[in-house]
């Protein structure tokens, strides 16, 4: 950080460098902020004259990645639940899915699963609607609670910063008091998050190696995120249909839930698989093993969710449907359980970091 502050050549790449120029010492909350402001685009590693093999050995993306992964654990609860996601790449999600599978089997009424009458595509013969709602609703609620808790604690820490070493060049303001975060800061942050503005610099996409740039990382992420959102919308609409209008699944292929789910599912299949492929091509120095593990676990779970979902949709009139449905539900359950402990949290922390960044920028400009 001190080297970066004295050099500043990377200043125009992304918000991280202007943000770090505001201080001369960096403590825990500052690092949580900076590491989550970083979107790991990779530019600064190859621009740095102090990167290895220089004796200073500076690797900004790699270092921030390691700190960032640490911050995910720090703000999660209970912390030790995050450990498996960081250690074992594919085993943990598989184990979780297996566990969920057992739950689903048990719930489906030990045996009742195999006695379903001629294929009608009626999902609720396999697992009654009420049980589905309770099981998944509770899990989802748990996930959202832990996520919210983490978000609140992160925001409290990051909002004020530590104000340490604020006598920094060009910044005579005292940061000991938290800058008032006007809602004005949320809009640019939202825009940045939804467009993934920081996965490219001046129109040039992320760097995967020296002068190797691929725009696919950003597009695969868009597919994943918006795919997820559409699938979520699909479920929500279905819930509305069921409870609001009494229309029970299965819905026609042209209906809103199925359309949303299908389109979303395509994104949620291609996106994560694309991201998984790209990461193999990326310079290892840009990341950190723990971070890689998180990425792979989530991507695999999402792709699996989508794949099993399509299986259910396509074969829903067949006699294999119950098995496929249970498989799909197990994966979704596993996904929900993992949500607050794996990579999923990154969206929340990065968005909050962006809000703080824009709030500080407005302060600076306002005071200038």
């Amino acid at each position, binding site marked *: 950080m001190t080297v970066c*502050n004295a050099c500043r050549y990377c200043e125009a790449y992304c918000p991280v460098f202007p943000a770090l120029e505001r201080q001369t010492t960096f403590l825990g909350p500052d690092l949580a902020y900076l590491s989550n402001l970083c979107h790991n685009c990779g530019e600064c590693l190859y*621009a740095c004259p102090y990167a290895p093999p220089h004796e200073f050995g500076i690797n900004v993306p790699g270092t921030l990645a390691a700190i960032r992964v640490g911050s995910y654990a720090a703000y999660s609860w209970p912390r030790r639940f995050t450990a498996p996601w960081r250690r074992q790449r594919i085993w943990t999600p598989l184990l979780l899915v297996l566990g969920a599978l057992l739950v689903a089997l048990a719930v489906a009424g030990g045996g009742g699963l195999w006695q379903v009458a001629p294929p009608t595509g009626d999902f609720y013969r396999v697992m009654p609607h009420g049980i589905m709602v309770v099981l998944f609703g509770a899990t989802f609620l748990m996930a959202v609670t832990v996520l919210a808790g983490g978000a609140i604690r992160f925001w409290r820490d990051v909002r004020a910063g530590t104000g340490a070493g604020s006598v920094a060049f060009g910044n005579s303001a005292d940061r000991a008091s938290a800058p008032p975060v006007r809602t004005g800061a949320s809009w640019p942050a939202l825009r940045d998050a939804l467009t993934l503005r920081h996965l490219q610099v001046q129109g040039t996409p992320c760097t995967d190696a020296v002068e190797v740039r691929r725009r696919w990382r950003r597009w695969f992420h868009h597919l994943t995120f918006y795919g997820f959102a559409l699938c979520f919308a699909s479920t929500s609409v279905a819930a509305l249909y069921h409870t609001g209008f009494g229309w029970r699944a299965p819905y026609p292929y042209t209906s809103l839930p199925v359309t949303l789910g299908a389109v979303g599912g395509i994104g949620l299949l291609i996106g994560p698989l694309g991201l998984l492929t790209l990461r193999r091509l990326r310079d290892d120095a840009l990341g950190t093993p723990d971070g890689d593990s998180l990425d792979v676990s989530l991507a695999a779970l999402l792709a699996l969710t989508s794949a099993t979902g399509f299986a259910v949709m396509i074969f829903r009139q067949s006699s294999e449907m119950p098995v496929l449905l249970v498989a799909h539900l197990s994966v979704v359950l596993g996904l929900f359980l993992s949500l607050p402990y794996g990579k999923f949290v990154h969206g929340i922390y990065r968005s909050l970091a962006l809000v703080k960044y824009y709030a500080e920028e407005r302060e600076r400009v306002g005071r200038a």
Partner: protein
Amino acid sequence: MQVDSLVVDVAVLGGGNAGLCAALNARQHGAGVVLVESAPYELRGGNSRHTRNLRCSHDLPTDVLRGTYPEEEFVADVIRVTEGRTDKALTRLLVRESVRCPDWIGRFGGRLQPALRGTLHLDRTNAFFLGGGRALMNAYYAAAARLGVHIVYGTEARGLDVSDRTCHAISVRSDGHDQIIRARAIVLAAGGFESNLGWLGEIWGKAADNFVVRGTPYNTGTLLKQMLDHGAQPVGEPAECHAIAVDARAPKFDGGIVTRLDSLPLGIVVNRRGERFYDEGEELWPKRYAIWGRLIAGQPEQLAYSIVDAKVAGLFLPSVFPPVSANSIRELAIGLDLPPDALDATVRAFNHAVTGGTFDRDRLDTCRTEGLTPNKSHWALPLDSPPFWGYPLRPGITFTYLGIKVDETARVIMTDGHPATNLFAAGEIMAGNLLGTGYVAGVGMTIGTVFGRIAGREAAAHASL
């Protein structure tokens, strides 16, 4: 790749900014080009890795350059900082061609950005590289590879076979093996001799032991020496160079930008004896920072100390090493290993001589001293607000000015006054044609780009004869 007895149109010796510009332009003009870089891949790019901008003339504002910087002003700046010791025709050529540099950079994927924060004087005159010099070199290298320039790393050009003003062969060493390259035209872009501690010692004596080499350890000046031995006309004085004040705690080589200190004009600078020795406020910093290295080189033990107080602490870019800090001047002296009485006396005399005025860091303001030897012409504020900070300084040499004479086609000129037939030079190795002494920020990269392009074009033209 194998370069054993390689025969090629154009050989560019040196993989920094000048060499890359020469290689790219030669290739664009249709020549087959090999680029020979003595550093390994990870350290390619010479001193250019540490640069951040390039000075260029412009008659209209651009997206990265504010206002205008007319040709006449740029030419006048060069003549002024060099005290007239410059080839005026080449300076004019440099300035005219500098207009096209931003465009050239963009053509190969290099990106520019508005001036870095805190470099207020430069946003009108200097185009900053997005991500700095190393990012620019990466873009150039990628473009060179795409265009089919053959690049070899870890290969040092050690000897030139020159007779009748013509270079017939280049001997290079790579991985312990010696090989020969025969080229129709050769561009010398291998830097100055600032990394050659032995050569520096011949010029400066024991003082050279206390110099810091700011950049690459690969600029040993081998080719420069070869050419001078073969009858190339020298230009510039051996002791002239771009040398700034760097933190004395910097690494011996490759410390780059973060070891430089910009606090000097905002306080006082004293030597080992606790005495001031030069006007710290003589000129705006970008026009003066490059002489301080030589000034410190002339001081006992090649040491000096920049001392500032709390009033100005936030007005200069932070250094990577923390200052020595104290609440009184005497305490600071002890912390810096300076004679406390002497330092105290210097500061008292200085404070007494400050005449008031209105402080303005960005202009030649009215804060000065009277009756001191030397006076401080601008930004003179009394040192009275603790905590006081002191930075130990050493001369940090960026590049040497003794070089090879060239003409307007970047051709090497021999001592008999005639140009060489197939030898061209660009970058630090010929910067002395334009810089007899002094410097102005960013002009080094301009020299490399402009003369690199010229050399590349001319070399390609010669190779096609």
